[in-house]
């Protein structure tokens, strides 16, 4: 589902080569778990122009979340805080319903967590943490996350 507050949306490439997206699917549907590649893309030219992309290796589970930040009480620093955080995560192993898992309960053992943080002025920042065997490569505005044995942490 794409919301009116979204600046980005996800796409997933199925084994058949067909792409599905948040426009007509939810990432908690079983079909999403068959994807071999996932992307988070800007919705328009007004969105922060950052793309996250990852291959889904055999034996790994992909998780997508959109974290929303709501203000309870507002001080001046609230304007500098992100309002949306697109989370792309990968972890080795199998979960029965990964769309229903609280990501905070999935330890980072063999995988990565990437966050695209969208701030209130519209700009974005990308953060990435991983176990030793995932790396990222940035090519202009595309951040590619990839399994790489014995890679160092970034």
């Amino acid at each position, binding site marked *: 589902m794409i919301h009116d507050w979204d600046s980005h949306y996800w796409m997933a490439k199925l084994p058949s080569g067909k792409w599905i997206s948040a426009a007509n699917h939810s990432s908690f549907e079983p079909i999403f778990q068959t994807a071999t590649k996932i992307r988070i893309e800007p919705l328009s030219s007004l969105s922060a122009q950052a793309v996250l992309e990852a291959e889904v290796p055999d034996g790994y589970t992909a998780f997508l979340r959109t974290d929303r930040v*709501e*203000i*309870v*009480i*507002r*001080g001046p620093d609230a304007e500098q805080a992100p309002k949306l955080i697109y989370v792309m995560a990968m972890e080795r192993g199998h979960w029965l319903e990964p769309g*229903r*898992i*609280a990501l905070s309960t999935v330890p980072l053992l063999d995988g990565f967590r990437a966050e695209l943080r969208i701030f209130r002025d519209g700009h974005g920042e990308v953060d990435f943490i991983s176990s030793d065997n995932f790396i990222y490569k940035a090519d202009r505005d595309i951040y590619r996350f990839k399994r790489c044995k014995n890679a160092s942490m970034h």
Partner: protein
Amino acid sequence: MPVCIKRYYGSGPSEVDISGGANPIGLKLKTYDGNSNETYLFNATHPVPKPTIGNKHSYTATIALYSDVLGSEIYSDPKIYSGGVPAVPSPNPNGYVAWTGAQIFVADDTNDTYTQATGVQDDSGTEMVAQGLTASKTDLLATYNSSNMKSVGLVGGVASIGPLGSAQRISKYVRLQGTLSTSCSPGSTVPATIYMRYSVTS
């Protein structure tokens, strides 16, 4: 209204959307210094006076995440945190004072049972541990920030909730309380920021 933060109050309880920090009966810090010798927190109508001994407290505020988005979203990992203890700005045209002697506590325990706050109007709310709302509490501004968020838990203690069939509270109740000590400064404290964050699978 998509997902919002509601404050629950009174005996009912009544509820009001306080998302964005703009609602005056929400958790808004008072920016009024009536006689230049007291610090006020939380409640613009019935401010907490500066104590001459010990502490005085605001009435405990009860908040939670609420959603009326039906049939499409799964929620998980609700959290609360702050922007830290704000420094006095320079220049300081509003005459804000530091948070010395003033704190906002968050109850360590969250639950699904609403309990109305008690206290003495225009004097002090009942301290949240003393009222039995939680076994312990933590200084929110000094402890919880974007690198160290407090997990709140979903209603019913489930790992995720949704897609919803009807509008409902989705997080447990979180309780906040302002506390003043004798060392607090006269004037209005620098506005602080408190956030709630939650995950959506969509």
